């Protein structure tokens, strides 16, 4: 039954999904560029935050591509990416406030993403809700 699968992939990247992927794409670009500059020019200044920036960038790229592909396997990858992202923004956000010295330079997730209008905090929640909605429409 290849046809319903294709329909679900189409459903994942249509409507609200298309908007969600657009926002994810912008964050994938922003996080990747930021991380490339940090690691390329001043990695030794703050290795841990910069590695975290790179990790965040990978997660955003993965989520963007997986949501845009939208097939069954991709939706599982997207689900894990969004979950990791949510945990990441919560942990890094908390640590950056409690132990500010641990983050001498900002990452996308510092202060729960306040440098990006808290969108990094909202985005994974919307991603998880969207995947759940697409999955439930399959049954």
């Amino acid at each position: 039954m290849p046809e319903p699968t294709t329909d679900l992939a189409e459903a994942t990247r249509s409507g609200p999904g298309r908007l969600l992927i657009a926002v994810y794409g912008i964050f994938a670009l922003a996080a990747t560029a930021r991380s490339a500059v940090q690691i390329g020019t001043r990695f030794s200044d703050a290795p841990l935050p910069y590695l975290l920036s790179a990790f965040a960038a990978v997660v955003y790229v993965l989520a963007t591509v997986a949501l845009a592909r939208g097939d069954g396997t991709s939706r599982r990858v997207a689900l894990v990416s969004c979950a990791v992202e949510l945990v990441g923004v919560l942990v890094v956000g908390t640590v950056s406030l409690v132990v500010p010295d641990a983050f001498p330079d900002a990452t996308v997730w510092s202060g729960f993403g306040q440098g990006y209008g808290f969108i990094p905090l909202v985005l994974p929640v919307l991603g998880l809700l969207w995947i759940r909605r697409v999955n439930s429409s399959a049954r």
Partner: protein
Amino acid sequence: MIAVLPTVLTVIALLIAAGALAMVIADRPLALGSTPTTAIGVPLVLLEIGLVVQAVVGLVRMSGADREIDELTFVGYLFGPVVVVPVAVVWALAERTRFGPGVLLVGCLSVPAMILRLTQIWAGHA
């Protein structure tokens, strides 16, 4: 930085964003040739041309600057919006619902954000 260009581009991007938002609210999908789509399409082309001009002028000004600038980040914010606008347009045109203009809204809101960071870096406090 480059005289009034960043301000003009910010205003154009916000106007397109407002138009796209109006289409989202009115539940109007994008359709090439229709009046609302043309009304935001023409300024979108102008915006992209202006962003390319800004990127070129920005590069020239940067290489002639006699002070310390975070050059790599600056170049990133010069070319970021140049890339984002056409990608947003292609991604938006594939959608047949109100979320097409919704994608343009998101893309056009990212442009003023990147221009703001660009001018902050040029001014030296960022």
